[in-house]
């Protein structure tokens, strides 16, 4: 899904692959952005992302990404008592995550504006 794979079904073709890659890359930073304001537990994060149109096709695939972000040290988790039920893992941004988000934000705005200027129909 990440890489362009030859011989994919026609409907997923070239453009489908590109959009999937863009989505995949951007999704990580959407997670960081959601955690910027407050810490959240997994289900909360996943449902928030699922609200964004076309962002998440299968909710379960967010968890491997969260695990990877944690291994990379941009987020960390703490166990917190929940109002109802068993304790939950809460995700929060680390200083390095905060830096990564800041850099992405600048790069993204430049990139988006640049592409928009060229691609947008008048």
């Amino acid at each position, binding site marked *: *899904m*990440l890489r362009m794979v030859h011989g994919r079904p026609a409907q997923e073709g070239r453009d489908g692959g590109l959009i999937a890659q863009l989505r995949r890359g951007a999704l990580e930073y959407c997670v960081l952005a959601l955690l910027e304001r407050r810490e959240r*537990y*997994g*289900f*909360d994060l*996943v449902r928030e992302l*699922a609200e964004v149109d076309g962002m998440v*096709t*299968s*909710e*379960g*695939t967010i*968890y*491997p*990404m*969260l*695990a*990877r972000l944690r*291994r990379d040290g941009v987020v960390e988790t703490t166990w917190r008592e929940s109002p*109802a*039920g*068993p304790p*939950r*893992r809460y995700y929060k941004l680390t200083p390095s995550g905060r830096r990564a988000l800041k850099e992405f934000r600048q790069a993204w705005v430049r990139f988006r504006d640049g592409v928009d200027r060229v691609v947008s129909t008048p």
Partner: protein
Amino acid sequence: MAEQAVKEYLHDLEAELRDLPRSRRQELLGEIHEHIDSALADAPAHDEAEVRNVLDRLGDPSDIAEEARQRFGVPKTKSGAMEIAALILLLIGGIILPVIGWFIGVILLWSSRVWTTGEKLAGTLLFPGGLLAPVWLTIGVSFTSTACSPPIRQGQVTVQGCYETGPTVFMRIAQYVLFAALVIVPIAVAILLARRMRAGTAPV
């Protein structure tokens, strides 16, 4: 049963995540379990349709596992190559490379995650050496033998009586049955193990 569906889902997921390190697998299973609990806590009715909906939104366990392998750079096990080698070696490994070939087959059999312990025991004990025993019986051992009495000297002539000792009819039948079992049972076990292999991973 709604709980049964959740259990099955997590079980499938665990099997799909088999290529990941144990700690990583446990972490992901724990998170997804937590997700399901949270989602169901929000759902008022707690019925089958709600559970279905939660699991559908999570997506196919194989997609989650694929994402996890990509995120952590873990290659997917080439399923089957080792298992096929194991089955071939269990059957004829002992013939190609006497005894040792069969032992390698046993090691591969027990290294695989496809089969249950019971299936592995069957593969090992039915029968040790695979088809080596019937092949050896065919080549090396005749079902009849010749017995001779000690030579007796009578004047200038030495007399020795020889006669064929054939097995009785009953023994002959028993030998054929035994021979057939030695051929059929290992092949039957190999076929069963091969079928199990295609069915997927063993229940934990």
